[in-house]
């Protein structure tokens, strides 16, 4: 039966969870449609510098998987594509997909980047670079990041001078050695019929500008960062080329991490975001590796070092790297403009003292919420912003054939997202094969 397909599956979301599900399904001889909203797969993991608790470089371990997606004949990758609707039709699901125009012919584009070099819409005319969380700008025609898959250029119609004014510029078209630019590209509506759908649309961050979080001064003080921004600063591919520097170019002497920002809060998110304790410990270690002299403090409530190897990682951060862990929570951050320092006031709960710490940078460990696509709501498997699954099988919804994995399901780290990805592939196989067996038996 080699080569014959067992069935067709749509995987919605190309983060690590979706990638893993797609790869396992392709290996089991399913035809997979991997549907990704952004121009490249990779999800949040692609934005990470290193990963806890082993400090592997994120792109070094993720890029081979992304490349594998391209190599698999069984996987059809749809980028810039969003599932608008899913309708259950007997044993099948009918998907309506809206694919935004790329304005670049992916068959011709070699990803050489000549167009990016020449694009006129840059700097002030450019747009905040999504990959760098807006800490830098990008051009109108751009390649999302060096390891993007597919590594093809894409034009942002909102800032492209040619697309906005319907004439002029068009430099990219002229310089492209492959003749790949196509300003006449249009939105497409695609219809697919599949046997099962795996939803892996990841997570969204809590908005650090919420009134309840205004005490942390995000958006007010330039040196208050979210942790995903800080991750970009640590990354060699990031806006500072991997230099741990402040916006004014100077090196910070001290960094303070504040945990549970927007998590474990009765007005925002009662639950814990699960990844952020370890992410801060990782970032603290990386900061120390970048600048051994920098003084690093983590203000926490509980350190949730629950996964394999996490406790050890935590101990190493404290004992080997000299990172200061203080149980306590700040009631707010202020600035001493004369010294250009941020001031964090907190209670050191284990000592029972009120402390004031001057610091150069503050990193907020931001809470996350599941990013639930609206079609799941319409399928009736969402309650109070959470996906409802079967009690004995956390990835199977009550609609047979719809599976939900990764951070869409609950706050999770990479190892759990990977396991859920593989598990979902197994569930699809079961679902498809078990459904077919009785018919075949009856016919014979």
């Amino acid at each position, binding site marked *: 039966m080699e080569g014959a397909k*067992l069935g067709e599956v749509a995987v919605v979301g190309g983060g690590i969870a979706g990638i893993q599900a797609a790869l396992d399904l392709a290996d089991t001889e399913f035809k997979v449609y991997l549907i990704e909203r952004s121009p490249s797969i990779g999800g949040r993991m692609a934005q990470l510098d290193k990963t806890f608790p082993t400090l592997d470089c994120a792109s070094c371990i*993720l890029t081979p998987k992304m*490349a594998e997606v391209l190599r698999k004949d069984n996987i059809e990758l749809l980028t810039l594509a969003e599932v608008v609707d899913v309708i259950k039709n007997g044993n099948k699901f009918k998907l309506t997909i809206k694919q935004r125009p790329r304005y670049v012919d992916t068959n011709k584009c070699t990803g050489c980047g000549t167009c990016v070099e020449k694009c006129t819409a840059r700097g002030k005319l450019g747009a905040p670079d999504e990959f760098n969380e807006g800490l830098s700008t990008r051009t109108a025609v751009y390649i999302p990041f*060096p390891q993007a898959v597919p590594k093809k250029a894409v034009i942002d119609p909102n800032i492209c001078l040619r697309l906005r004014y319907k004439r002029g510029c068009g430099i990219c078209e002229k310089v492209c050695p492959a003749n790949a630019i196509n300003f006449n590209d249009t939105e497409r509506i695609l219809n697919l019929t599949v046997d099962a759908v795996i939803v892996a649309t990841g997570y969204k961050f809590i908005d650090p500008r919420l009134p309840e979080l205004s005490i942390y001064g995000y958006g007010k003080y330039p040196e208050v960062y979210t942790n995903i921004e800080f991750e970009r600063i640590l990354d060699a591919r990031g806006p500072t080329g991997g230099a741990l520097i402040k916006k004014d170019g100077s090196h910070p002497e001290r960094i303070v991490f504040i945990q549970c920002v927007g998590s474990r809060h009765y007005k925002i998110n009662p639950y*814990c975001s699960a990844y952020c304790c370890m992410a801060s410990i990782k970032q603290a270690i990386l900061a120390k590796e970048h600048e051994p002299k920098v003084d690093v403090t983590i203000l926490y409530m509980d350190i949730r070092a*629950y996964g*394999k190897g*996490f406790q*050890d990682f935590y101990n190493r951060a404290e004992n080997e790297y000299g990172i200061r862990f203080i149980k306590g929570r700040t009631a707010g951050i202020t600035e001493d403009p004369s010294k250009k320092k941020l001031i964090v006031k907190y209670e050191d709960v284990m000592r029972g003292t009120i402390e004031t710490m001057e610091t150069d940078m503050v990193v907020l460990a931001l809470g996350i919420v599941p990013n639930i696509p609206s079609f799941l709501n319409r399928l009736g498997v969402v309650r109070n912003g959470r996906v409802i699954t079967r009690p004995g099988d956390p990835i199977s919804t009550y609609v047979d054939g719809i599976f939900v994995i990764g951070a869409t399901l609950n706050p999770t780290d990479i190892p759990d997202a990977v396991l859920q990805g593989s598990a979902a592939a*197994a569930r699809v196989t079961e679902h498809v094969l078990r459904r077919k067996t009785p018919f075949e038996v009856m016919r014979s």
Partner: protein
Amino acid sequence: MRDKDVRIGVYICHCGTNIAGIVDVEEVARYASSIPGVVVARHYTFMCSETGQNMIKDDIKNLKLNGVVVAACSPALHEVTFKNAVKEAGLNPYLFEMVNIREHCSWTHTDRRLATEKAKDLVRMAIAKVKELEPLEEVKAEVVNSVLVVGSGVAGLSAALTLARAGLTVYIIDKRPVLGGFVTRLVNIAPIGIRGREFVKPMIDELVEMPNVKVLTNAEVISVEGGVGNFKVRIRQRPTYISDLCTLCGYCEKACPIEVPNEYEGKLTMRKAIYLPFKEAYPPKYVIDENACTKCGKCIDACPVKAIDLSVKERYIDLNVGAIIIAVGHEPYEPDKGEFGYGLTRRVITSLQLERLLDEEGPTGGRFIIDGKVPKTIVFISCVGSLIGNKTTNACSRRCCSTITYDTLKILSKNPDSHIYILYRDIRTYGFEEELYWKALENGVVFVKFEEPPKVEVMGDKIMVYVREATINKNIVIPADLVVLFVGMTPSNAGEIVRIFKLSRTADGFIREAHLKLRPAETPTEGIFLAGAAAGPKGVMESVIHGAAAASKALALLLNKKYILREPLVAKVDEELCSGCLICVGMCPFNAISVKYVGERRVATVNPLLCMGCGTCAAACPSGAMEHNGFKDKQILAQVRAFAGVVV
């Protein structure tokens, strides 16, 4: 030298500016083309792109290349890409060599001139190697479409069910006399609130009904041979002594004179040497505890259906399977006598015993009483055996915080007047389970943070728990009626398992996975997968997922597959040179080398399906008979000579 007429193509990638930014790629290409044997050397922005690959393919066809060197990124990333391109153009893919001038060159150096020189050295070495390469064929191995699942806890059951539903033949074995593993001792699975035995019952019921499933209890793997796609496994099954005729009448139990503590009731009650572990147990028959049984034979006389035969001997079963899933789970930490007062009074119990006390079908019928009395003040001590205690794994057991809070709610629903104190280091109710913590708080549970482990002293009918409440820095003492030690998860005979399956363990003692983050359901040995708490502390739901993930790997390997292809980069013996010393046999970590006779002469022989290509044997062989495909002495030495500037 392979051939007088070597025709090598060399391709240097810019990787955008990743390589070209530091390495003068043009210069490297020019240099390469000057080396004898090189008929074409090109450089291009992205060799891995369609255009780049076509360049190679066209040259192979048009220039009749018989060797290819690509200098680009890490082989981990694109070796397969280029190998496939070479193959598609009709050249043997093992006549290709990849050089990493990104990670090893442009990303690690800042001096343009030196980086370029290094890239030239590396390219020259690769060219020298390609001249010595030989075409190789992939090894095609037939696969057996069946899987052995070792351990029948939730992870094992989950894996077995998935595989069986997909149609593979599944053997599931357990060293215990019943299926279900650890959850059968849990009253309620947090946070879903299903009784452990009820949780596994439908899984077991479905599994044992399937024609493609074979269950073996009282059974353990004693040896494994072979490799991915075709393992030969020997299993020892200890006798059960009781046949399927057993009607569960229980006369034998009444007749049996031997009493021992009942491990299925947390040793809170006694059971006989012949007993029924619990009423939902599968297989549904009585079992005999070999260690306790004196073979007095009273049960034989008592059994009305003659189901008991004490003369049965252990038996050995040989299985042939394509993949193995290891799901041997964990064991709860057993505190020493006197550790936190354990064993000094019946009122210091472990979390496991607590489970039994809360179970409607447990020894107290679900009434929460100890020694006939309702305990009013209850102290929980968490992290015992994980982060505190006499022996610790020094790792978090992950599930305890959620379970403790869940259990306190359960206790409060039975006895609302209880005063409950939870002594903790950190409360780790991660994710949505934080809500359990909040619920416990709202129900009046008091949380006490400690830094130094608490001390426990038994004083009459009170148990005094001394602890420094670290958040107000005061020494307090709690006079408790009951102390519950929340014990951590420790690896279940992982030592034995890693020995038999040739695996390794992580610092916490659990089995090591192939890659902690991206391959958590695989072991480093192909075809052997990992599921559940055997790989580290995990909850019931997480184990169900881990089981399904391991099953997915086995499905990808075996479902509808007749054979698998394996890389021929394995060790090979030159039988002429082999002196038969067999040093290599002992060195091979994968049992891939065996003895063979060529006429009278004893020589080593390598099973290419088992060889993982580590090269240990080739290094150890004193007569140079053992060589490694793709890494033969002449190939490596050619590289070394080329490095030293001796161009041949």
